[in-house]
């Protein structure tokens, strides 16, 4: 990204390589329980989805409400290869991204004519139509019965590293892109499309480039989900709330238009939901566990009202508040 923004991002920027190293090395030192591994893998998946959405919405200004479309298509590429031809769904990991890109391009032909709220609605409707079609066309997709596949490994460790590789791949490619000409062009389009054209920017081309990168990673995330979970059905992978909306919320909580925001958002989302789901590891009464999504929803409202830049974007504000409080206590 720009000279200013990345360097001034104190939450991660300084510790970036340290955190990446920790993510790679720690599993070798400590033995994480399968439960922890599972949580970490979900954080990876949400990091990829959130970053993918953020490139399009946060950096390029194209707020997609239908990222489930690309996630679902990516998941079904591997799923369908296995279902129809008994080819290993791992091929989906290679093909899921490119096929999602193709879908993204076709949808883009329609929805790029739309601006603002109409773009949001167009993407939302496209994803919903795919959900219904994949549920109805049983000859192709096995409909609501879904596709089942016996996962390759029993242990979760291998998945952890595959997930980590994909998550790092998505975050680092986006980081690289945002430091280049394309990144500046995305930001220009987000800020003012007319001005961007006058600066010699082919806005249509660069919107398509942003879409290609974004849909590639969303599709890859979907393909990984298929391999890891071993089961997909249209209501899960094309879900409006559980995929498209949560993807957006991960971006908002962490920080729209920041490189590491979606990663932080994914961590917060998974942890908050898990804390409540487990009723604070059974310390709280059991009815608390029913409130895990409620708690996350309230957090979203709080962040939009008071931290419009998200945790990463408004880290300075948060830190000042914390320091202030600490100083008070000392006195």
């Amino acid at each position, binding site marked *: 990204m720009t000279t200013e923004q990345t360097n001034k991002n104190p939450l991660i920027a300084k510790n970036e390589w340290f955190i990446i190293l920790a993510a790679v090395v720690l599993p070798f030192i400590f033995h994480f329980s399968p439960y922890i591994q599972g949580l970490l893998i979900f954080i990876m998946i949400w990091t990829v989805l959130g970053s993918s959405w953020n490139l399009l919405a946060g950096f390029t200004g194209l*707020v997609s409400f239908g990222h489930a479309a690309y996630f679902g298509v990516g998941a079904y590429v591997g799923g369908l290869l296995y279902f129809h031809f008994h080819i290993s769904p791992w091929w989906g990991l290679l093909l899921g991204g490119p096929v999602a890109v193709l879908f993204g391009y076709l949808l883009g032909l329609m929805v790029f004519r739309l601006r603002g709220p109409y773009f949001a609605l167009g993407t939302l409707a496209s994803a919903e*139509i795919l959900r219904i079609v994949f549920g109805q066309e049983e000859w192709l997709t096995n409909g609501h019965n879904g596709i089942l596949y016996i996962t390759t490994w029993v242990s979760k460790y291998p998945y952890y590293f595959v997930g980590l590789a994909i998550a790092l791949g998505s975050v680092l490619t986006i980081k690289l892109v945002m430091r280049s000409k394309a990144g500046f062009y995305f930001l220009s389009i987000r800020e003012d499309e007319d001005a961007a054209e006058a600066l010699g920017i082919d806005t249509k081309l660069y919107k398509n480039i942003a879409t290609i990168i974004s849909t590639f990673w969303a599709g890859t995330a979907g393909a990984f989900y298929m391999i890891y979970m071993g089961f997909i059905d249209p209501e899960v992978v094309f879900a409006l*709330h559980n995929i498209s909306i949560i993807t957006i919320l991960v971006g908002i909580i962490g920080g*729209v238009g920041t490189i590491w925001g979606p990663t932080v958002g994914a961590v917060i989302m998974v942890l908050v939901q898990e804390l409540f789901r487990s009723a604070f590891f059974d310390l709280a009464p059991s009815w608390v566990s029913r409130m895990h999504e409620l708690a996350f929803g309230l957090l*979203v409202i709080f962040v939009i*009202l008071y931290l419009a830049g998200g945790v990463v974007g408004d880290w300075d504000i948060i830190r000042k508040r914390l320091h202030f409080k600490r100083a008070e206590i000392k006195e």
Partner: protein
Amino acid sequence: MELFLQTLVNGTLIGGLYAIIGIGMTLIMGVMGIINLAHGQIMMIAMYITWVLWQFLGIDPLLSLFISIPLVYVLGDLMARYLLYPLMEKESILPENQVLMTVGIGMVLVELARTIFTSDYRSVQTSYSDIVWRLGHISLSVPVVIDFFIAIAFTGAMFWFLIKTDIGRSIRATAQDKEAAILMGVSAKKITILTFALGSSLTAAAGTLFLPIYYLYPDVGPIFTLKAFVITILGGLGSTVGAIAGGLVLGIAETFGATYISMGYRDAFGLIIFLLVLIFMPGGLKSLTKV
């Protein structure tokens, strides 16, 4: 032919109810310039209010209109006043911040309902729920017919309000040209809050009326949110007459699609029409009358 007429009648009756959901949405979209992703969820709240009144106090859904509408009006007022309006003055990366807030609101409403009422399916059985009138070979479900006429009454009252009262005129002026309206001395804050509350209470009316016909569960909202978008875009943004036309078209398209093509695609027809209209006729049905 009988099937055709029956389908047409069913579609029209449902369309009448869709129309009031659509009018609520078109007012909010027109005046606030945002899409409200909590619209169906607000309707869901009205449905639970109605259900509680019926289940525990034995109040007929038609009577509970007098309770659910004011309650949801207050809820809408509070949400607009404390959650949506403050965002209008805030700088943020995405202009869609208010839209995202409605996402958060919708999520909280659904989860509140789930926490309190669990995910079980609920329904209301009134004494007249199962009565059917027969007109020749066409059968008419009594609660649907009653609902249809109440919906028409609400639509009429809304029109009277928008056309004849000063506040109504300010709302229409704001929907047509926000900046001009503010220059003319209309208070943006007052109108924003009022519109959101009114739009919410219209959809509350629809929710209460739907209850004897539909099952109720916490996730019933989003599908109606989608329908509201379809109606609004179909009719032309900000147009109340368009919303009525849009509601009828959607109701009829859905029932015909379900009858003649495939039940499973029922919800997809609206969305496909929606995409086509969005792309090829951005002004909606409204634009046809202005040629």
